[in-house]
């Protein structure tokens, strides 16, 4: 017979297995989103085609997500918006990752005082409200897509820089780096062959998680009217535009919002899965 055992195990074991169906759903969703971003025409028609005779119509077989205030098909806009929102997110994340790696390595490899100064400013910046940072940047550079991307990218830099610095710190002191010294490896060689690859290991996963954050932030800023120009079907802007019609057409804002949520959930689920895999590989 089996003795019923006290807690965590069961729950823990399940929590490791549970996301499987979720993971599959996330993967399917992400593939769809990617396809939508690359070939939106596969899924939907013209996102800009206005039809003054059919404004704010409820979801139907013809307009899956209904129509908006100009009679445009919300579903088509959401699909085409994937390119805008995802590319804003990806571009911002790339900026953040690139600058984060550079600054993080710089801090992790440099001497005490420089490291202290750099990592203090990462700390300060990452505790500073993201929205405020981005707003500040927009106050300087003006609104527009480019400025939005750079603003989000910059706001996320400290996040990556901190991780990279911490990782560099660990790796730099790891015994295997010491061992490489035993073979007469020069400093530059150490950095290139040991430190860099090991530091960058967790970055892709973080980038996926960061992408979610970037998209959320972009939606927020778009909502505040600091996003791409109309009629670009960016998701945040759609939610924001649709909000004015909430009484008569909830779908114009809620459905694009649901897509944003689904995207970020999917990214997070996928990112966490790989994170766990990655950590598991490190430990096992």
């Amino acid at each position, binding site marked *: 017979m089996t003795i019923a055992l006290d807690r965590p195990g069961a729950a823990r074991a399940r929590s490791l297995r549970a996301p499987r169906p979720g993971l599959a759903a996330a993967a399917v969703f992400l593939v769809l989103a990617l396809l939508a971003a690359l070939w939106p025409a596969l899924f939907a028609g013209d996102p800009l085609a206005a039809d003054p005779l059919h404004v704010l119509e409820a979801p139907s077989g013809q307009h899956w997500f209904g129509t908006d205030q100009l009679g445009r098909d919300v579903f088509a806009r959401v699909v085409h918006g994937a390119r805008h929102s995802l590319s804003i997110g990806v571009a911002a994340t790339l900026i953040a990752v690139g600058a984060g790696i550079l600054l993080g390595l710089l801090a992790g490899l440099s001497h005490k005082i420089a490291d202290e100064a750099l990592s203090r400013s990462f700390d300060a910046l990452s505790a500073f409200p993201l929205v405020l940072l981005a707003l500040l940047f927009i106050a300087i550079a003006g609104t527009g897509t480019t400025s939005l991307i750079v603003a989000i990218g910059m706001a996320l830099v400290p996040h990556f820089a901190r991780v990279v610095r911490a990782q560099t710190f660990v790796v730099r002191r790891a015994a295997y780096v010491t061992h490489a010294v035993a073979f007469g490896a020069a400093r530059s060689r150490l950095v290139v062959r040991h430190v860099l690859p090991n530091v960058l290991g967790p970055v892709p996963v973080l980038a996926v998680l960061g992408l979610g954050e970037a998209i959320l932030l972009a939606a927020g800023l778009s909502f505040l009217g600091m996003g791409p120009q109309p009629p670009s079907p960016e998701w945040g802007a759609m*939610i924001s535009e649709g909000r004015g019609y909430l009484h008569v057409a909830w779908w114009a*804002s*809620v459905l694009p919002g649901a897509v944003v949520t689904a995207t970020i*959930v999917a990214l997070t689920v996928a990112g966490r899965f790989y994170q766990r895999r990655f950590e598991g590989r490190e430990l096992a």
Partner: protein
Amino acid sequence: MITAILRRAGAGLLVLWAAATAAYLALLAAPGDTVDAIVGDGADTPGIRAQIIQEWHLDRSAVVQYLDFLLRAAHGDLGRSYLLQRPVSAVIGSQLAPTLKLAVAAAVFGVVLALLFAVTARRLTSTAGLILVSTPPFLIGIILLSIFSFRLGWFPVSGDRGFAALVLPAITLGLPIAGTLAQVLRDGLDRALDEPFAVTARARGLRESGVLIRHALKHALLPAVTMLGWSFGVLIGGTVIVEQVFGRPGLGQVTVQAVNSSDLPVVLAVVILAAAVFVVINTVTDLAYLLIDPRLRRS
């Protein structure tokens, strides 16, 4: 002890100065000059421009203006709003209370909900938390507003009158915090419950709830405290959006308006204020660590 406090204060001042200077320099680089910002969409003739330059002393060199700004800021004078024609301290001062009220209410709501979730419904936490964290807060706000205020009329649509007006915004702002915090707490609890000391506690005959509350919770709080700074960012960033959605007065509104109309003195003041709060939060975090974790206390 005294030197430690002085060091802290000094570091705090340094952060303030750095934030103010960075923001000042950055704003200096903004397109369109100050006069443009003050003119706004009003009438614009050379005569009007000349008057503006004279009134705001914009003919002085950038260095002099910066030093003047620092000097006055050190005396607590943050200048006058270009747009609102009032002292910045008055503009911000009048909006501080509603924002603080909102932030505190949201924080309390978020923490309580997170604790409830993490301790009682651990299974549910990860999914619910994930969805909450992944939903744009303004969407949550919009939905809450249209259901509970427009349809059901339970809560006022907006403003800052009484407790009822605080409920929906605080929930909107608190939910993402609760989502993240609950996940962190849950993770921490799970981790702590697997630690040898927790097994030892069980081996003493302690019931599971006892292990949870007497041992694991404190450990789970440590990573949660680390998130204090982060939550502050989310709270302040969130107020910007939540105030917009609910038409609440507050610093968020002021900030967006100031950014939109390049009202630099106000933007600067907001940055300095945020930096000041950051310094305070940081100190509080450190103290909280000391309180919870004896290993950090120096004898």
